[in-house]
C-alpha cells in the first residue's frame, strides 16, 4: 500500500526546489466521498494531496488544459509541471507525448500504482446500498468500506470496482520520473474487453435496439468529450467557434457554414456525435473510462471505445499508450500490414 505522505513529501520537495512550477494531483472533495483534481503551487499546500480509490479522474486532462492556458496566454513555462499519475493516466500522457502535444521534459510524472486495487464505481456502490449516495470510502487491500446515510458497509473490491479497473492490465505507470507502490502489471481481475464481450453476445437486432435507447437518452452535455485528454482539439466538430464573421461575410457564407452535427439532441445527431468521437479516438483511447464515468445518463461509452481498441489490437497488435517512441495507429505503416489492399 502506498503511504500518501510519500506523495506529499515528493510534491513538497519538487516545489520547494523549484524543479516543478506546480503539481497536479487529487485533494479531498468538499461534497462528500470523492476526491477532486487540484493544482498545488506552493510547498505548504502539498499536504492537501490525497491518494485513495476515489481518485477517479484522469489527470492527463489537466496537463492538456495547462498547455492550452500557456499557449492562449502566450506564456512560457518556467519549469516542468508535476503530475500524480495512475497507470491509465500515464498511458494517456504517453499518447499525448507520441502526438507531440508537449515534450517529455515539460512533465514530471509522480507515478502511483493502483497495485491490487482500482477506483470505485459510484454507481455500483449506490446499487449495493439501496440507492443512497455514499459519503466516504476506504480500501483495505481487499474490501471497500463505505459510509452511507443507512450506516457503514463493507463491500468486496471486485463488486464495486470500476469495470475499466477490473479489465486493466497496466495498473503501474511505467512512464514515470518517480513512482510509488508495487508493480502489478499483468494482474487479472477480469478478462480484457470483458464488458464488450458480454455486450457482443447479443444479436444485432438487440444491439441496435440498445444503442438507439442510449443515443435517444444523450443530452449532449459533451462531458464525455470534455473529460477526455485525447479530445484536445481547439474546435470540436460539434462547436462552431472558429467561424469569424466580418462585415464582408455574406449571408450565404454564414448560412452555409459547416455544421456536421445539429444542436438538437435527437437520435441522428447524437449517434453521429458519438460515432465521430469513437473514430477520432481509435488507436488513441487508453481506456481510462472517464467518459463512461462522467456520463450523467449512464451511456456505456467504453463499449464504443474498447471496440475500436480491440479491433486495433487484433488487426495490428496495437497497444495505445505503451511507449512514447512507438508508432501511432493511424500515422504509421508496416511492411507486414495485414491489409492486402495496401501492399
Amino acid at each position, binding site marked *: 500500500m502506498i503511504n500518501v505522505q510519500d506523495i506529499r513529501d515528493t510534491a513538497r520537495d519538487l516545489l520547494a526546489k523549484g524543479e516543478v512550477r506546480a503539481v497536479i494531483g487529487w485533494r479531498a472533495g*468538499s*461534497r462528500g466521498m470523492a476526491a477532486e483534481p487540484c493544482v498545488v503551487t506552493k510547498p505548504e499546500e502539498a499536504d492537501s494531496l490525497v491518494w485513495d480509490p476515489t481518485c477517479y*479522474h484522469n489527470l492527463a486532462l489537466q496537463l492538456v488544459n495547462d498547455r492550452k492556458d500557456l499557449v492562449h496566454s502566450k506564456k512560457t513555462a518556467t519549469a516542468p509541471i508535476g503530475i500524480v499519475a495512475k497507470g491509465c493516466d500515464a498511458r494517456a500522457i504517453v499518447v499525448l507525448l507520441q502526438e507531440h502535444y508537449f515534450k517529455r521534459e515539460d512533465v514530471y510524472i509522480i507515478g502511483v500504482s493502483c497495485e491490487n486495487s482500482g477506483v470505485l464505481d459510484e454507481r455500483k456502490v449506490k446499487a449495493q446500498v439501496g440507492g443512497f449516495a455514499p459519503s466516504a470510502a476506504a480500501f483495505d487491500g481487499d474490501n471497500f468500506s463505505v459510509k452511507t446515510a443507512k450506516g457503514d458497509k463493507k463491500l468486496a473490491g471486485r463488486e464495486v470496482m470500476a469495470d475499466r479497473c477490473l479489465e486493466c492490465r497496466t495498473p503501474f505507470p511505467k512512464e514515470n520520473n518517480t513512482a510509488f507502490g508495487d508493480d502489478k502489471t499483468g494482474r487479472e481481475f477480469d478478462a480484457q474487453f470483458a464488458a464488450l464481450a458480454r455486450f457482443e453476445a447479443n444479436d444485432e437486432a438487440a444491439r441496435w435496439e440498445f444503442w438507439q435507447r442510449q443515443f435517444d437518452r444523450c443530452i449532449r452535455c459533451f462531458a464525455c468529450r470534455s473529460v477526455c485528454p485525447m479530445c484536445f482539439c481547439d474546435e470540436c466538430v460539434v462547436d462552431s467557434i472558429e467561424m469569424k464573421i466580418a462585415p464582408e461575410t455574406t449571408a450565404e457564407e454564414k448560412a452555409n457554414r459547416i455544421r456536421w452535427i445539429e444542436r438538437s439532441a435527437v437520435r441522428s445527431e447524437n449517434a453521429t456525435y458519438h460515432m465521430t468521437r469513437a473514430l477520432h479516438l481509435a488507436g488513441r483511447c487508453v481506456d481510462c473510462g472517464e467518459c463512461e464515468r462522467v456520463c450523467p445518463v449512464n451511456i456505456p461509452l467504453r463499449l464504443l471505445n474498447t471496440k475500436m481498441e480491440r479491433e486495433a489490437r487484433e488487426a495490428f497488435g496495437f497497444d495505445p499508450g505503451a511507449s512514447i517512441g512507438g508508432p501511432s495507429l493511424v500515422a504509421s505503416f508496416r511492411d507486414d500490414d495485414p491489409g492486402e489492399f495496401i501492399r
Partner: protein
Amino acid sequence: MSMEKTLDKALLSDWIAAVTSGGWQVHGPALEDGIWTFKPVAASVDLDYPNVKQAPKDFAFPQREIFFAFEHIKGEAPRLKEVKPEAPQCAVFGVRPCDGRGAVRMDKVFSDNVNDPYYQERRKNTAYVGLACNAPPSPTCFCKSVGGSPVSSEGMDILLTDLGEIYIAQAATKTGEALMAAADKLFGKMGAADKKQLDKVHADAVAAPQRAVKDAKGAPAALKAGFDSAVWEEMAKPCIGCGICTFLCPTCHCFDINDEMTGMSPLKGQRVRTWDNCQFPDFTMHTSGHNPRETLGTRLRQRVSHKFRYFHENFGMLQCTGCGRCVSECPVGIDIVAVVNKVAEHVA
C-alpha cells in the same frame, strides 16, 4: 391547504387510472439503465426513489422546440408555417420539493416579463404531484439553506407525504383539487392521528441536517463585491467545461435558436430552439469571434452569479433550489455550495 386527505398506498394505482381516464398522461419515476427518469406510467408507479437524475423542467421547456418550418422555392416568396407545441396534459407524480420550487422559477422567466407561448402552452397542461422528502437527505442536498424545505409544496399542485401504509395528499391548487376529486372515493378523511403523524414526519424531515450555503441572504451582495475576485479562476481550475451542471439543473433556462435544414433544393428547414449552456465555448461568443467569457473562471462566475445574484436582482428570489445535482454530478467536484461560501469569505 384546502384539501387534505389520506390515500391507502394500495389505491395509488386506482387513482392513477382515474387521473388517466380524466385525460391526463401520467408520468412517474422509472429506473431505466440505472438512472431514474420520469416516464409515462401504464399501471402503477414506485414512488420509493431518491430523485430523478434530470430535473423535470423539460415538461414545459423541452430540450428541443420547433418554432416554425420554412420553405423557399426559387422565384417564389418564402413560405413559413407556424408549428405549435403538441402539449398533452401531463400529470407528473413524484416531483421532489426542490424541483417544484424550480418550476416556480422557470415560470418567472417565461411568464413574468415575457410571454413565451411555447412554454406557457406546455406549462398550463402540466400538473406536478409532489412527494415530500422524508428519507434522509442525500449528501449533496442543501434546499434548506436556499429558502426551501424538504416538505415544501411550492410549485406543486398536490404534495404527497409517505406515512408508511398511507400517503397524505394535500392539494395546493385548483388543478390539484380536481385531480383528487376525479377519484374522490379512493381518498379518506385525514384524522387527528394522521395529522399528528404528518406533522411529526414533516418536522423530522426539516430537522435532518444538510450541507448549507452559509449566508444565502447575503449571497447577492457578496457575489457583486466578489465579481473581480481571483478565486473564480482558482475554483474553476479543474473545470472541464462540460454542460452537466446546467442541463441537469431545475432552473437553468438559456437557449439557442438555429435553423436546421432538411433540404437544400428547394431550401427547406425548421427554426429550432435548443437548450444552451453557459459552460460551452461558443456561449456569448460574438460574431467577431470575441468572447467576453472566454475563460472557465468567467463561465463559472456567470453560472453561480445567475443563480445567486442576477436572478435575485430580477425576480427577488434566489434561483438555486438546492437540489444538489450540479454538485453530485460534476465530473471534477466543483461544488456550488463551496463556491458561494468561498466568495463570501473572500469579500468579508
